[in-house]
């Protein structure tokens, strides 16, 4: 069965890139405080950010692929399989965002990768 894995790959890449852009733009925005601003103004502010719009587009692509995946595969396969994005995201967090990723996080990412590989059995 090739189609489910093609969909899983699409979801992983789109989710990882989408999350990366989201994190860049939200950090640039600063901590979200709902108590000292109106929600409408907050959303208007966020809607003007280019990376965030691109991130939302990628999340939408990932979501449509996920809908199709749910139509052709089990929930207990689809959901853990998409956790594979975590491995790609840890790499991107380290390489692009420059976050400090220590050995425990690398081991965690490695275990998740093994887990996803086991789903293919």
């Amino acid at each position, binding site marked *: 069965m090739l189609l489910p894995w093609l969909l899983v790959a699409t979801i992983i890449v789109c989710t990882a890139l989408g999350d990366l852009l989201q994190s860049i733009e939200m950090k640039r925005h600063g901590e979200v405080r709902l108590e000292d601003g109106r929600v409408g103004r907050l959303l208007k502010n966020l809607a003007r950010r280019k990376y965030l719009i691109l991130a939302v587009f990628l999340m939408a692509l990932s979501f449509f692929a996920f809908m199709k995946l749910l139509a052709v595969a089990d929930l207990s396969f689809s959901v853990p399989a998409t956790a594979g994005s975590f491995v790609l995201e840890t790499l991107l967090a380290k390489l692009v965002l420059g976050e400090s990723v220590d050995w425990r996080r690398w081991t965690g990412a*490695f275990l*998740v990768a*093994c887990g996803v590989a*086991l789903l293919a059995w």
Partner: protein
Amino acid sequence: MSGTDARIRLKTLIFLLITVFSNCVGDLSLKWGMGHQRQHFSFTPRVFLQTLFSPWVLIGVVLLIVWLLSRMALLSWADLSYVLPLTSLGYVLTAILGRFFLYERVSWSRWSGTLLIVAGTAMVGLMTRPNTTAQQKDNS
């Protein structure tokens, strides 16, 4: 521990719970909706829109929008590499929901794969302190 530190920890916990809950129930609802369509799912506009606006799929979509927004808020003060492993615990909970609500046959390799994902995420969540922007400011 400073007051700011306690506040940001509580806020982080609340947003983590909202994020995980909306993700799990959203996925379950979406799968339920996709499994109960009269027609074969495709990306032609008519079939796509009909599917998207069927009740269970729509509930799933709304919950996943809640998930997206609560996680975006979370990402504004917490590290991506801290948020992701903890919220991906929800992926595993969803697999359990699939077993008990959708009666999916879950093979031993699928359970062990799922458990390895739990182990990977727990490893990060239990053994490291959250790296938040506020904490870094406190320390400097």
